[in-house]
Structures are given as C-alpha cells and as structure tokens.
C-alpha cells in the first residue's frame, strides 16, 4: 500500500483549526451569562480551552503551499461541522447535569444545535443553568450563520447541492456580482443575518414589555437566535407556546424570512423587491406553506377534540406549519395531541423546506419545483418526442445536468430517510422501546432533514432521550450528513476522493 493521498488534507485541517480557534469567541458569550447569573463558568472555560488547544494543534499542520481546492473544501466542511459540534458538546458534559451529561447525549444536543435541527434530549429543562441553556441557542445561531456562508460562498465554488441550483438559476452569478470577492459577499450576507437577529431581539423584547413579562431580555435574545436561524431550540419547555399569542404571531415572519433566499433579501433591501416577489421558488415556498396551513386549520376546526377558538385554530395551524416547513421546529402547542390527519399534514410539510440560499434545511422548494417542472416536461415530450423544452425557473432555463443532480439528490434523500426510519424501528425493538412506524418515520425525517421535534414521545414537548442510545448516535451522524447536503460527507467515503 503506497497509494499517494491526493487531498491536500493539511489545508483542510488548517482551516478547521482556524474555525475551532474562532469558536472561543461565541463560547465566551455564555461564559459572560454564567458570570452575570453567578453560575459556574467551568463548562465554558473548559470548552474555550479545548477549542483554543485543538485550534492551535490543527493550525500547526497547516501547509500554506497547499491550495484549498474543491476536495479540500469537502473535507474541511465535513470536519468543521463535526468537530465544532464535538467542542460544542463539552459544556454539557462538564456541567454534568441531567441527561446531557452523557457524552452521546451531549453530542446529540450539540449536533442538533449546530445543524439547526432543534431536536432535544433534555428531559427536565429546570435542572439546567441559564448559561448552558443559552449555549444551546448560541450554537444554533452559529449553525445558521455557518450554513449561510456555506450556501452562498463555499458551496457555489465547489458546485454542490443547493448552491449549484442557484448557479443554474443564475443567482450565484448575481451573488458574484454583488461584490467581486467571496469574502465581501459573505460579509453582506452576514450583515443581513446580524440585522435580522437584532430586529428579532428588539421586536420580541418590546412585545414582551407590552404583553408578556415572561419574554424578558434573556428570552428575547434566546429566541431571536433560533428563529432567524430556523433552528428551533427554546429555553422554555413549552417552546414558543409559553408566550402570549401576539408573540407567537411575531415569531412567524422571522421564521419565514430566515427560510427565504438571503441573496433575494439583499436585492429587496437594495431597492429591487421584484426579484424576490417575482421569484417562482418564493411563490412555491409560500404556496406550499399556505396550502398546508389552510388544510391543517380546517382539520383542527373540524376536530371536536381540539378547542382553540377561531384565532387559536388559525394561529396554531399557521405557526406549526410555518415552523415545520421553514424547518425551525418551534411549537405553539403540543401537536402530538392533534388528530392523525393534521399530524400527517405536518409530516408532509417536513419534506418541503424553504428556499435555497437561506438557513433552511430539508429538501428545499427549488428542488421540488425543478423536479415537478421537469416531470411535467416529460409528460409533454411523451406526446411530442422531438420537442425541445428547457425547464425554466423564473423564466431562466435550468441546465439539464443540474436537473439530473436534483433527481439524484431527491432519490438519495428519500432512500436515506427510509433506511433511517427502519434503523429506528429495528433498534427500538432491540432496545425494548415502543416506537410506532409513524413515530419512526417522523423521527427519521425530523433529524435527517434537520427540522426538530417529531411525534409521539419525541414530540415538541417531549424528548429524544426515549430512543435507545445507539439510535441517538445514528441520528447524530445523519443530522450531520443532512445539514451539509449529503455529498460532502459521502464523497469522503469514495476511494477516488483520496487517491485519484
């Protein structure tokens, strides 16, 4: 065995080191919270120490002569998402309180956070220090920021996943036109993200002052972090359901904006709102959300066992559908109690996802739209075999290669989702847990597609701690794979990636 490794892994590891060292900055935010509330700073001191040490170690292997090409970027993306979650798990283990003291659970919580999933293994929220609970929120906010950079700057360079779609839709051309340099483009996108987060803090806090004392500054910051990131953690065991209805309504637009293409938001802010308003993916995304919310509202209205009143019915339908479709994962009520029809609608909504180029997860509206249009084209060419019909999104033709990639991505996603569901059922039987098929499907979708809560015991007011430890370990891996669009992880397992 003397095959030469052809990946400039030193560059990837070096970049990972940079990111790990930088992680010490956001880790100091919960540290300050801990000092403010007089809680133990140890969990964060330990994590900061590890992040700096690992960062330095990784940076020491950095080889400046190696360029960061596509392969190195794949490796770096996979490493960064995994190791940041691992370092992010340290505070939970060091704090040593409740279920998350166990390393696998801590890793689950941190990965669920970083991938903006929002599934939790906590059982009793009241056990935990305020600083630890804030760390969950911060890591989700970081995850949202990370995916924005990945989607708008990095993935477009290595031509993977959603970003490639943006390319075929000639949106990244526009991104590149925003500024000639990737770093500047990324800064513009961050600026919007920071601005939206600040706006959310202000809106939540002011509404809290007006109608609900429970929405204090701590909660306003905590929820602002996880709504724009479409992430879904909440320090409240009742999630957003703990707050006044007006606040629940106020959260909806932030989830929806977080799932809207940040590139198009940039244009909208800069006086070209028509580019957003005329975008077909935007129509599809809002249409899917609106349709599902109407059907769920109708279902709740006709179901005699739910008594929310008119406003409550509409609010719960809109809020929870928006939460699922944007892949946030908040809840305004325990929808596990709803009739099966409404629950299945929510399950369906898990597969939609928001727009490409946002913090959203799941399959994403653009892929569905392209697949549906391509299928409709196939129906036409079945009758007129000679006709040449490009698939168009917002009037722009989509490259045929991109369409094939989308079909492959859809198939791959659905196969992985089914495999995971089967693993959950089999593993539950082995571990003597009771998981129904629907609950297994829900849990598989919600973790792999990075949404958050599922159904049954793993519902919005429940916990994933009821699944066997081995299942949770598998879920950690799939949250990781799902968040970075499958390909960057799967290519690492090909021989060609390393040698040819």
């Amino acid at each position, binding site marked *: 065995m003397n095959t030469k490794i052809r990946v400039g892994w030193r560059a990837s590891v070096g970049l990972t080191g940079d990111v790990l060292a930088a992680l010490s900055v956001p880790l100091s935010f919960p540290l300050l919270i801990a000092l403010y509330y007089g809680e133990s700073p140890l969990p964060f001191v330990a994590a900061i120490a590890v992040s700096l040490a690992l960062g330095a170690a990784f940076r020491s292997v950095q080889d400046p002569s190696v360029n960061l090409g596509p392969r190195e970027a794949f490796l770096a993306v996979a490493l960064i998402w995994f190791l940041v979650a691992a370092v992010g798990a340290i505070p939970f283990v060091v704090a040593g309180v409740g279920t998350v003291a166990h390393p696998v659970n801590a890793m689950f919580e941190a990965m669920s956070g970083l991938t903006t999933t929002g599934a939790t293994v906590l059982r009793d929220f009241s056990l935990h220090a305020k600083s630890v609970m804030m760390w969950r929120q911060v890591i989700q906010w970081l995850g949202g920021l990370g995916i924005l950079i990945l989607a708008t700057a990095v993935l477009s360079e290595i031509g993977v996943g959603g970003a490639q779609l943006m390319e075929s839709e000639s949106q990244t051309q526009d991104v590149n036109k925003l500024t000639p340099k990737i770093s500047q483009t990324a800064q513009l996108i961050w600026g919007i993200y920071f601005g939206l987060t600040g706006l959310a803090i202000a809106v939540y806090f002011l509404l809290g002052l007006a109608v609900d004392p429970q929405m204090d500054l701590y909660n306003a910051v905590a929820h602002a972090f996880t709504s724009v990131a479409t992430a879904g953690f909440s320090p409240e065991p009742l999630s957003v359901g703990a707050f006044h209805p007006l606040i629940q309504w106020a959260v909806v637009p932030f989830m929806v904006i977080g799932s809207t293409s940040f590139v198009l938001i940039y244009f909208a802010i800069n006086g070209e709102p028509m580019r957003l308003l005329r975008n077909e993916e935007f129509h599809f995304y809002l249409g899917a959300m609106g349709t599902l919310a109407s059907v769920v509202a109708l279902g709740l209205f006709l179901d005699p066992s739910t008594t929310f009143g008119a406003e409550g019915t509409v609010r719960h339908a809109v809020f929870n559908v928006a939460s699922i479709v944007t892949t946030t994962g908040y809840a305004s009520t325990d929808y596990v109690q709803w009739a099966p029809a409404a629950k299945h609608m929510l399950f369906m909504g898990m597969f939609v996802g928001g727009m490409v180029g946002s913090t959203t997860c799941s399959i994403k509206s653009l892929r569905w739209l392209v697949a549906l249009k391509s299928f409709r084209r196939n129906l036409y060419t079945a009758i*007129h075999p*000679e*006709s*040449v*019909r490009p698939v*168009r999104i917002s*009037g722009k033709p989509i490259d045929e290669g991109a369409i094939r990639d989308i079909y492959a991505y859809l198939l791959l996603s659905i196969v992985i989702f089914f495999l995971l569901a089967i693993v959950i059922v089999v593993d539950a039987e082995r571990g003597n847990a009771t998981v129904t098929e629907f609950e297994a499907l829900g849990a598989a979708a919600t973790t792999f597609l990075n949404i958050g809560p599922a159904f049954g015991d793993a519902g919005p007011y429940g916990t994933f701690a009821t699944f066997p430890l081995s299942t949770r370990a598998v879920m950690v891996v799939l949250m990781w794979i799902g968040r970075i669009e499958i390909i960057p992880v799967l290519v690492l397992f090909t021989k060609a990636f390393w040698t040819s």
Partner: protein
Amino acid sequence: MHVVVIGAGEVGTSIAASLASDHEVVVVDVDPDRAEQLKYELDVLTIAGDGTSSEIQSAAEVDRADMVIACTDDDQTNLVACGTAKTLGDGFTIARVKSTDFLRTWQGNEGAFGVDFMVCTDLLTAENIVRVIGLPAAVDVDPFAGGLVQMAEFEIAEGSPVAGQTVSEADRFESLTFVGLFRDGEMTIPRGDTDIAVGDRAVVIGSPESVQSFATDVAPETTPDRADEIVVVGGSEIGYQTARLLEERDFKPRLIERDADRARWLAENLPNTVVMEHDATDTEFLSREHVDEADIVVTALRSDEKNLLISVLAKRLGVDRVIAVVDSPDYVTVFEEIGIDIAINPRTVTAEEITRFTYESVAENIAVLENDQAEVLELELTEGCGLVGRPISEVVAESEARFVIGAITRDHRLVTPRGDTVLQAGDHVILLVESESVGEIASMA
C-alpha cells in the same frame, strides 16, 4: 452626391445600380475580375483592392465622399471599412452586418465603429417576414426608429368592424396614433370625432404590437390571430429572429431545427416557441406533428434547395400560406412561379433598405404616401431646434404646417405622444406631414 460602395456582391451591385443614374458612384471590390466586369455593366468607377485599406479608400476619394456604404459579405470588413472611412473624411457611413450582436452594440452607442447607420440583414429579413405574416391587410408598412415604430396604411374594406366608427372609437390602443385618413384621394388629418367610412385609407403610427392589434380590428378575416398556427422551418439567425418577433406580437410559433445544440439554444432563448429537433424533410414527422394544418409556414433553412423542397412539400400538404427565404435573387421568381406565396431575398431586402436611406432628405427615414400627398418622416431633434422644449399642443397650435406626431422614441424606448408631451433633444420623432409643409417642418427640426 459622391458615393463609395465597398463590396460588389449582390447587395453592392444592386445599390450601385439604383444610385448610378443620379450620383457619382465608386465601387470597390477585392476581386479584380468582378471590378472589371462591373465597369461595363454600370456607369460607375470601379477600383480593385481591399476596401479596408486607407490607400484604396483614398483612391476612391473617400475624403470627399458624401456617403460610404460598406456592404461586403463579411461583418468585420464592413465595420473596419467604415472606421477607416471616418479617419479620412466626414461622409455618412452605412455598414451591412449579419450579427445582431454588432447591431446591439451599435444601438447602445450610435456612431460606434465609425458607423452612422447599421443595417442588420438577418433582422431586417425577419422583420420583413413578420410584416408579411402579420399584416396582409395593410396597403403599405414601413418601419421607423430601428423597428421600434411602425407606420401602416390600411384600406377599410366592406364589412370591416371599424367602418362607421369614429377615430376615437377605433383608436383604442395605448401606443397607437391615428395620423391620417385618405378619402377619395384627399387627405384629412383626423380628429377624435371624424367618422371612418368604407373605402377610406387609414394611416396609423405606433408600436409594432399595437399596429398588429389594430390590423386585427380592421381586417379580422385576413389578419392572423394568436390561435393561428405558424411553423418556422430552420433555426438559422433569420429563423430565430422571425420566431422572436412573432413572440413579441403574441404569436406562439413552432420552430423546427435539426441540430441538437442549436435547438436547445433556440428553446432556451424563445420561451413562447415550441422548438422541435428533427429533420423537416421527414414527411412522416410533418404529418405526425400536423404541420399540414398550419396556417403559415416559413422556410428559413440555410440552403435554397432545402427551402424549395420544404415549401413545395408544405404546399402539397395543404398549408395556406408559404413564405420562403431565398438566398439567391435569381430563384425568387422561380419560387413564386411554382406557387410559393412569397419569396424573400435577404440581399434584396438589404439593398432596398440602404437605397431608401440614400434619398436626399432632412429626415433620417421617410415614407411617401398616396401619390406624394403626404410623407411620414423620422426626425432626430437637435438641441435648440424649434420643436424642442415645448409641449406638442403648443407647437401644433403655432405652426401653420399640417402635421401629426405619431410616435416618439427616446433612448430606444417608445413614448406615446400626448398634447402635453415635451419634446427633448435626441428624441426621434415620427410624424405625418402634408407634402407642401415638408419644408417648413424640416426648417423647424
């Protein structure tokens, strides 16, 4: 006028022939035999040599030329020839090009490449085809302002829905202006309450789309509507431009192209056209796709023989109207004798357009109506001329000339004239004027 024609191909020869009687014409061609031959055919001076070289151009006395027409078969040669001519003298330069890219560049900055007027053969041919397709009821159609504006004259036939209406009832289109009405050979400038009678000839100026809509009102029987099937065979530049212009007029044509890559390109660039990738000489394919039921077939393949074959085939299958692009002028009559409805030769079209431009006139572009009773002029307004800076109603009230402003283009966009529209320097104004008043209008511009 001293005119230098560069390129003695079909276009150049045809232009030289029509100018030779009234003007002093010098023809430059790279082929000595061709130059020699032309000397005996036409009463012109010929020079053999490279038309882009300043030496040859000096020999042709370009420095004192009033007009230089570069019409070889090669785009770059024509552009360079015009550029060279501009360094030697101040004659008006006309370049013939095939590429619409060059045309767009030139339209963005008129005067680019040292070209004062650019004629794009393929686009011009496509515009001709579309006019023939779209306005069979028109007596006369002329494009203005680079195709942004059309003037059309219609005869109001018995049973036309417009007969009996007043002008304001008939003129219900935003970007259309009703500029003239001829009754028993007498021109009147129409007012809103003027009645339109059978046998009148109405002159309208507006966007090509609005003229098309008006034609549907005037002659619903003969004017094709959106439901009409139009099939364009051949995705050449002419075929592409034809389909594109048809799309602009709300038609949904079908285009048949054999080459896969070209078909894909066409499909991407023509969202409202059904592009089919197949050999159009395959009759089984034609009947499967019901091309025989088409109302109009345009053949725009690159070879005359193929166009002839498809045209004959289409006629035999029972297509109503067949329009063929014919590359060789000699075949035009042959095509029409066999029964092809209209044969269009791109070179003839180009030569006519350039010749039309050489008429000495104040206007950039003119059309003469009804035995010279009136003219439609296109004027480019300069800073400080009598029309600039005042609302149209004021200009009309003060002037003794009888004229109607039909359309204005500003920065290549159509502006519909209203009484309060203020004209600006740089505007192109398309107006109908009584022949006696042409001089007066010209002095104002």
